[in-house]
Every structure is written in C-alpha cells, then in structure tokens.
C-alpha cells in the first residue's frame, strides 16, 4: 500500500471509533449536538491538534519529540516578547515565534541526527530547557496582548462574519492540509516513511538520512511555534508555565490515530481523528457533568476500546 492508500484506510478505521463516541453523546445529552458546542469541540482541538500534526512526521520517521509542550509555551513567550515588549507589528511577531519554533526543532534535529542522541533524551532535555527559558524570558509572569486586539483575533476572531466560527479552526484545517500534502505527495514524505521503516536500508540507498531527519524535526518545530501563537492568541496572554503535559496529549492523539511509535506507519488524517476523539470525550463528559474523577477513568477505558476496535478491523481488513 502507498502511504496515501494506507492513510485513507486508517482514516476510515479510526473514524469509526470517533463516530460511535460522537453519536453516543449526541443521543445522551441534548446540549451536545448543536452548532455552538460542536464549534467549541473543534476550537478546543486546535492547540493539541496543531502540536499533534507537527509531531506526526517526527514519529513516523521513528523519532519522538517531548519538547513540543514546553516548547509551545516558550514560543508563546517569544511572541509576547516580540510584540508586547519590543513592539514589533503582530504579523512579524507571529512569524518570529513560528521561526523560533523551527529553531527549537533544529537543535533537536542536530542532537538526534548529528550527535546521534536518543530522540527521547534529546527532546526531554529540550523540554526542560524550554520550560526554564520560558520563565526566564517572561520573568515568570504572563505577558498580556491586551493592547494588541488583533492578536487575539488570530484565534477567537471570525473571518466568516456572524458565523461565530473561530479562525483558529480554519488555521487548524489549513495546517492539516499542508501536513497531509507534505507527507503524502512529496519526496520528504516518502523519505519520512522510509527512514522510520528501515533507517539503515534508507541510508544505503543513497539518501541523506541525517539531513532529512533534521528537516523533519525543524518542520515539527515550526508547528510547535504555530501552536504557541494559537494558544497565546486564544488566552490573550503568553503563559510561561503552561505546556507541560501537552506533549503527552499530542503524542497520544497521534498514536490513537494509528501511527506507530516504532515508525514507518501513520497518517495525518489519523492524527486529526485521534485529536478529535480526545476533545470530543473531554467535552462530552463535561457536558454530561460526570464527576471529574470518573471522567479520567472513562476517558482511559474508551480510548482503550477505540484503539482496540481500530486494530481489530485492521487485522481483519
């Protein structure tokens, strides 16, 4: 199967779980299925979704990136420093934050591809460094974009007037398309799958594995930067202490979406579905006002079932 075909297949499979969960809540609670709430679900998927999309390629290439959570916070702070403290125009500040994410990715890439450090360690270290730097740069205090209303509009504004449909969701859709195209139709995508599937063979086939790995981490980093912009735009402030734990949720979304942590297999659509499964569950359980301690239990069990169903079909498929 070509990556695309595989992707389409996984899409159908994984989506089944999503559909079932969605249908359940729609029947169970009248407040679930309405324009407003569905918009909320999509909206609450944006940040994790962006991180997950960016890290999908990294995981398919057989790597992992634990620094995306705190890295996101750092990029948010950078955006704040550029726009609020240094008074850069919003577009430039946004660009700067995204590029800074790319820089984080570059460092990760060099540590993994050149210094040959285990991705887990390299990015774990970066996770700590980013967390610290976010606090240092922000002097451990949130940076507020209150004087730059345009900034919040990146997330909560709405290009479609009166629709109340937040731009953030459009952004997510856009980056999903970009990620999908990159992974399914470009040489980079092919190499990503090849490296994750058998790095030695790929290298002996005359592919500059080292260079491509770095590129993959850099791209992941750019997504981290974007996620930093999206979350700070949503909150109207750069929160230096948030982010820890986001990496786990993002990776979970990727894996729930059928991407294998051992590399070589995975798809963007799967990741989107994985991210949606998580946020639909969170939203639905809260809408039904399930006691919070039970929400965790149910979340765990349902994810287990969803992935199991997915796998069972794959095997029969």
């Amino acid at each position, binding site marked *: 199967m070509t990556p695309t075909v595989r992707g389409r297949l996984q899409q159908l499979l994984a989506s089944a779980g999503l559909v079932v969960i969605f249908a359940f809540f729609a029947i169970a609670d009248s407040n679930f299925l309405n324009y407003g709430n569905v918009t909320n679900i999509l909206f609450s998927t944006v940040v994790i979704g962006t991180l997950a999309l960016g890290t999908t390629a990294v995981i398919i290439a057989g790597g992992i990136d634990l620094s995306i959570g705190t890295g996101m916070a750092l990029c948010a702070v950078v955006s704040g420093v550029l726009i609020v403290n240094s008074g850069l125009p919003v577009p430039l500040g946004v660009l700067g934050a995204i590029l800074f994410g790319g820089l984080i990715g570059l460092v990760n890439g060099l540590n993994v591809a050149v210094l040959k450090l285990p991705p887990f360690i390299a990015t774990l270290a970066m996770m700590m460094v980013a967390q610290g730097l976010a606090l240092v740069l922000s002097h451990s205090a949130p940076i507020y974009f209150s004087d730059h209303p345009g900034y919040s509009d990146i997330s909560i504004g709405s290009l479609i007037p009166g629709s109340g449909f937040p731009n953030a969701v459009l952004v997510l859709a856009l980056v999903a398309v970009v990620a999908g195209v990159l992974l399914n139709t*470009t040489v980079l995508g092919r190499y990503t799958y090849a490296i994750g599937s058998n790095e030695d063979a790929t290298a002996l*086939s*005359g592919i500059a594995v080292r260079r491509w790995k770095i590129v993959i981490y850099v791209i992941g980093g750019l997504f981290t930067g974007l996620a930093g912009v999206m979350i700070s735009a949503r909150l109207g402030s750069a929160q230096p202490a948030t982010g820890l734990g986001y990496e786990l949720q993002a990776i979970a979304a990727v894996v729930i979406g059928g991407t294998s942590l051992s590399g070589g297999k995975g798809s963007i659509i799967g990741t989107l579905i994985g991210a949606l499964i998580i946020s639909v569950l969170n939203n639905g359980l809260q809408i039904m006002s399930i006691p919070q301690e039970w929400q965790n239990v149910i979340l765990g069990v349902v994810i287990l079932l969803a992935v199991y169903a997915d796998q069972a079909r794959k095997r029969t498929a």
Partner: protein
Amino acid sequence: MTPPLLEVRGVRKEFPGVVALDEMHLDLNAGEVLAVVGENGAGKSTLMKILSGIYQPDAGEVRIDGEEVRVGDPKHALELGISIIHQEFNLIPDLTVAQNVFVGREPRRAGLFLDHGALVAMTRELLDRLHLPLDPNAQVGRLTVAQQQMVEIVKALSQDARVLIMDEPTAALNDAEVEVLHGLIRRFRAGGAGALGRAPSSAPDGNTAGGAGALGRAPSSAPDGNTDSGTGVIYISHRLEELKAISDRITVIRDGRFVDTLTTAEASLADVITRMVGRELPPAGAAATPEVPATGRPVLSVRGLSTKALLRDVGFDLHEGEILGFAGLMGAGRTEVARAVVGADPTTSGTIELHGRTVRIPDPATAARLGIGYLSEDRKQLGLIVEQTVAENIALSSLARSFQTAGFVRRRSIASRAASAIQDLRIKTPSLGALVRNLSGGNQQKVVIAKWLVRDCEVLIFDEPTRGIDVGAKEEIYRLVRELAARGKAIIVISSELPEVLRLSHRVVVMSEGRVTGRLEAEDATQESIMHLATLRRSPEAGSP
C-alpha cells in the same frame, strides 16, 4: 515396508492475490537428503513454513511416520522433531552466538537460573565439533551474513531433530564453507543429531542432566525412540551443482505445484532445469564476458584503504566497462571494502579517486551523488524496506533524481518505470503495490537489483547479487551486468560463488584477512589459483606496512 518419515499430500496455500501452493506432494524417507528445487516464487519456503508451523495449509495433510499431524505453531514443530533453518534469518541480534543457539533451551540451575558457564562450554564444544570459527560470546548482530548463516545452522543441528529443513543454507556461503556444511549433513543423516557428538564430558555437572541436551535436546523434544527410525533432511538450494554432491533425491516444484521427483544418481542437471522452468535453457556460461574496451581508463582507484576493524592497505583500480570480481573466504573483508568505499563505515586511512580526482565520501548519499551505488549482501536489514511496496522500494534511490518535480513525487512515472523493471528482471509479484515482505526471497533480491538498475550509477558494487536467485534468473542477471559493463559502467562483483566470479569478471581481486592477497587477470583466474590466494595467512613478521 515402513511409511516415509514425512509425507505431504495435496497441500494448498493461498495468499491474497497469490496461490502459493496447490496440490503439493512430497515425501521424505528416513536417512535421506531430499532436495527441493524450483524457480523463485515456486512455493518452496511457503511449504517449509507450513511444515514448521508458521502457516496453516488451506487444504491437504502432513503425515509423520504415516500419522497425520497438524503442526500448530513453531513450538509444536520442535516438539514433533522438525527443525528449520529459514531462508530469512531468525536470530536475536542483541544476544550472543551461544545465547542464540540455545535460546529456549538454556541450561539452568534450580529451574530458573541460567548456567552461563555451561552454555558457553556447550556452544564451544559444538562449534569445535563442527569446525566453525565462531566465538560463542560474539554478539550475533555484529556478525556478517555468512557468519549468521552458520549460527542458524548450528542452532538447527543442535535441536536434535528428526526432520531437518534447510531453506537455502548455502546462499551466503562460499565453497569451502559449503563443504563443511555438507560434511555435517552427511553425519546428521547417518545417525541424527546424536552423531554430532555426545555431551562434552568436560562440561560442568550442571548440564550433564540433558546428555544430548548439551546439543540442546529440548526437554519437550521427541523421545529417544525417534532417532532409531532415522532422520531426514529437506534441502532447498538454487546451486544445482551442489545437489549432486549432497542429495539422494530431488523434488521439483513449479508455480506451487508438484512436478516430479528424480533420483539424483540418475538425473542430469538439464533434466532438473527443464522441469523447473518448463523449458530448455541455453547451456550455462554460454555468453562469454566481452573484452574491456581499449579506452578503459580507471574510473575508481582505491589506495591504502584501512579500517579500524579489519581492512589493511587495500588498493585496486576499476576501469570503465570493467567487471572486477572480489573473491575471498567468509570475513575476508570484501563487504567491508565496499562499505568503506561508499562511506558506510569509517576508514582510518586511504584515498579514493574518481576519474583521477580525489574525493571524500563521508556517507552513502555522497557516494550515490558521485555515481557509486552499493547493493548490500544483507537484503532484509540493509537492502530493502520490507514494509513498503515493490514500487516504493524500486524508486527509493532515484526519487530525488528521476521521480520528482519541485519536491512532489511523480507517481505515474514511478509506476511505469517500476513496471518495466519488474518485466526486465521477471520479478514475481502480485502487483506494484504488494509489500516486499510478501515476496519470495529471490524476488526480494531482484527488487534490490532493480532499485540500483533504476538509479543507473556509473560505478556499481554488487555484494552477493545472486544470493537466493534461481538458475534462470541468474543468467538474466549476468546478462544485465554484462550489458551494464558494455554500456561503459564500472562494476564490482563480490561473490562467494567462485564460478560466478570466474564467469563474470575481467579481473579478480582476492582478499584474505582484510588484505588484498592477489589480483588475477581473467585467463589466470581458476578455482585453484583463487583458493590459494584466499587462504594465504599473514606470516608473523609481515606486519601491517
């Protein structure tokens, strides 16, 4: 009249899009070596996987001593006394030779604790008895293909089986090693694994418990009674000439069907081949190697190449349109030369000149960019991405060069190019989209070759290019290699099959212990002259230059 040791009756096995076996018959008598031959993709390995419990047949039955058995899983196969050497190795890279040989049958203390001393002692004893130069404590992942093949053989022999299945055990071995193996097989056929030796009396008390257990009789394995009724060997090989030497009878299969069973003594190779391919083949070695064009200037010259591990001061010239053969015993360093040249392994010294210009080659990517391609001897680990499709594998090396516009992959041109490559090499695959994992061993090998043909390098290094490839296809590949040379490509052929080296090469470089011990022109190159140079040992005083 006692029933055959092993019988296969009307076995059928279907895979999505392929009927691998249909109406398959086979019987193996006690005390005989039965050769099974057939073209790549004929169904040999599939049949063996059924016998060893990896696949379940869709129809038909298997009998042992006349009794029908259902081989549930590999463990069950071992219990029935069937042990197999798979075509694709099944070794555990992070464990040592000793640990691999006895995995699942470790000598224990108090049931739970490992007896490391006994394990090593038993393995060493075994290796000595088999005259195999392997270190029991060597990590298997670091061994060469040939050495890994040896470990597989030792492991299988040590399992004290009644039916020993060998799926192309000699594909990666050279004649000397093949000889050793044949010796082993004869002794095995004669008296079963027991004949390979009793438990080392020297061994610590800890393990004398399992007397032959020293040779790994699994606690669960067949009762002693079995060995009385003798043992048999099923031997799969594409090196037809060796069948004469080792087999008693030859079963030929074609397209998953039983064709015929011949008595080796009465059959000629021609008979076998005709039945295999279903048509006459031109007599082997017909087309002679064309002369090197007079213009032949050196394309690649290597000087003073040394590596930390093995190589010492290796040098050679490769000319335009030349086929340069590399011969040597296992571990001689041929693969390392190739790996060093393409930058896969670090070198400690040496220069590489391309068209007279000195070049630095830090990695295979650079090598490929400079037009040097290396086809690894280890197709599964280093040659293929088995989880991807035939088309993806064939295109991999050439994506950036031939199959992209502005970074976007051109699927159609890949499809057409791959399709033609599949035709040229007669690769047997259900479709372009089939996973390489599901191809037969020989067809996988062809995919590796196709990948490099598509890449169209100026210098091509083939390491064991015909490993596991059937006679017909071999001739095809020889033809291709000669064509490439005729088109001015410079080609290195590393092969453990001397006949192959002799038939293809304009000149032969012979290596031993990481040094070049001789360079022979085609006319001076003979089995004898090569083996002489290949076995030259370093004299004590002659240290490294």
